[in-house]
């Protein structure tokens, strides 16, 4: 009687080995897991908890109007974070650009002039930020703090000069930035494509990441570290200036707190996207894109779910700490290189 040949069953050790290997792969690529997994979880949880209101036509428009300025700012800021820099002047510079945009628009009625002035002003602020940091040897956080105070001071001074709000007099001129969701989508796509190209396929992006991993090594490889950092700040400035026009179009007027807290939104968005603040080779534009969307979904979803606004900041803060912990925790086999 012939014995039927049976396939040898998989040994338990092999299954355990596969699981271990999967776990190790997950740990080594945890940034991607955080990026896409976080997005999926937020989307699913709030899709269910809001009973579908998250996807109502009105709310999708709201999401678009909130995502657009944050996403454009975040993809610009990736260039700074990638080389290990830090910036906390986003909100103040954005507010200053919005203020100047209102003045220019009311004086000239030209949208093009507004765009140019806003971008140039942001580039100027960020260039000064970089120059202070590099030439005086200050930590990038300190130099950005100085820019933040200066910009915030200018805004407060201007707002205090009048008892009425500083507002756009002809709101229809900027209506495309606030009411056209197709335009917002196109602007996001353009910003992502341009920054992705610069970051992934040009020397600027590659050298920025190299500096983030090891500035000494990057310098010895031929990278002009100061110039690369300056160009990164310029790219960030262009993005901030562009996004500021969307911000002011959405609000229509300037208060002394305009842009306040925006820097934290950008940092949280980028971290939610799985990017480490120390930068380096694992920096991705996709982190900013996915992170921005996740962040806005989180804020919007919590609100739609009926969570009191008293707890929203608490929840965001807790999430931020968890993700920072996950992204900062290094594999013990990874050598911590000198910076």
């Amino acid at each position, binding site marked *: 009687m012939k014995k039927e040949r049976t396939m040898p069953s998989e040994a338990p050790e092999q299954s355990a080995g596969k699981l271990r290997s999967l776990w190790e792969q997950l740990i080594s690529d945890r940034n991607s897991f955080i990026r896409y997994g976080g997005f999926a979880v937020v989307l699913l949880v709030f899709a269910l908890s809001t009973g*579908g209101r998250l996807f109502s036509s009105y709310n999708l428009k709201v999401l678009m109007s909130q995502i657009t300025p944050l996403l454009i700012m975040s993809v610009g800021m990736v260039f700074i974070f990638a080389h290990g820099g830090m910036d906390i002047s986003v909100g103040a510079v954005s507010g200053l650009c919005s203020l100047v945009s209102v003045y220019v628009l009311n004086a000239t009625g030209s949208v093009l002039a507004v765009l140019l002035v806003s971008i140039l002003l942001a580039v100027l602020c960020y260039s000064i930020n970089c120059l202070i940091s590099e030439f005086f040897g200050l930590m990038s956080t300190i130099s950005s703090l100085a820019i933040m105070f200066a910009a915030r001071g200018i805004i407060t001074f201007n707002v205090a000069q009048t008892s009425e709000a500083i507002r756009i007099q002809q709101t229809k001129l900027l209506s495309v930035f606030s009411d056209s969701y197709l335009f917002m989508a196109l602007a996001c796509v353009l910003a992502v494509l341009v920054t992705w190209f610069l970051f992934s396929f040009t020397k600027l992006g590659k050298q920025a990441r190299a500096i983030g991993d090891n500035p000494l090594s990057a310098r010895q490889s031929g990278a002009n570290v100061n110039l690369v950092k300056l160009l990164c700040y310029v790219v960030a400035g262009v993005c901030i200036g562009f996004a500021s026009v969307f911000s002011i179009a959405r609000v229509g007027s300037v208060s002394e707190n305009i842009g306040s807290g925006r820097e934290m939104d950008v940092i949280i968005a980028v971290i939610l996207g799985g990017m480490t603040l120390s930068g380096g080779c694992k920096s991705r534009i996709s982190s900013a894109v996915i992170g921005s969307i996740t962040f806005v979904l989180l804020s919007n979803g919590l609100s739609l779910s009926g969570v009191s606004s008293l707890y929203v900041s608490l929840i965001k803060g807790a999430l931020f700490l968890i993700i920072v912990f996950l992204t900062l925790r290094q594999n013990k086999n990874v050598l911590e290189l000198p910076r």
Partner: protein
Amino acid sequence: MKKAISILLLCALMVGLCVGMSGCGSKQETTKIGVILYNFTDIQGKEIQAYCDYLKANFPVEFVYRAVGSNDEDHISGLQDLLSQGCKAIISGYDTALSKSIAMCEEAGCYYVVALGSVSAVEFPAPDYQPTPVEGIESKYFLGGTTQFGGDPAAVGVAYAQKAAEAGLKHIGAITFPTFAFAEGQAIYEAFKATLAQLNPDAEVYDLQEFMFTQELCNAEVTALISNHPEVDAVLGLGSGLDFIRPALQAQNRADIKLLALGYNDTVQSLMESGSVITAGTNNYTQITASCFARIYDALNGNSYADRTAEDLNAVVGYPVILSMDDLADFQQIVVAADKANSSITVDELKSVMVTTNKDATWAALNELTSRDVAAIKAARG
């Protein structure tokens, strides 16, 4: 490859969810009304919320609360969230980003009313200060603002001056919020100064000082006042006197300086008993909420007041002042009553001034009801 497949699956899931769940949501049996304030933890927030709970128990409405920051962006984001939640009307504490807010509400078919301040049809923007129409002010979805102090802020200044004269105060500083945030402050100050000059020519009222909403800036103004006028014996605290100016005086170790405060909190009783606070007062938040609700409820039901004209942009609400311990007792019993059924405006009284529930209701009657002083309310209660 695996990552690409995962991303594709995720996108497919998102699209599927969007298509499948768009338009879903529980059927609304009650009408949602959003309420926007800076916070709901102070007396203002608590009183408004308490009266809203009372209204919820008596009308087919529910309230959704949203605390926002003072900047325009936070206000717009908060408003968007409320509109996304399906609110059909918004009670906004402030006229922050007014034109934009009205435009958003108009797009969403939602009514909008400003609860804690009056609005005007024109503004005078810098730098040329030419009058400019406020966009959207004529929209049918904008139900107007709310004029405080019963429409006569000077009366508060007169009452406070009489108490100051009685108390024998001679050297009085005055601190308030900036004019753009508290337009009535100047009128109260001028009336106070003029009345005190008549009652006590020897008394001196110093120039009005302003600060921008933070304790640190208030401390700076109080420090400046005391440095410039060491003989000061009282402060007319028009900028949340109890919440900002009293702590500033304590920080200067000058709790001996009396306070004529606009404001009310749990410390008023003990401070008035000790003589540290001579006067106090606050908006009647029941009247404010009732006024806003009446306009909203009528608008939602397609009704309007026959006697309300385009010039009647703002409703009028009262401002009870506390000049004595008896006033304080009445205030606690009526104005901040825990049981709103016994508060400044009952449901029956409110229904009598809404066209939806009383076809003969008038705009004048609404404003009369919502600007009654404590004595009139007591008389109405019998």
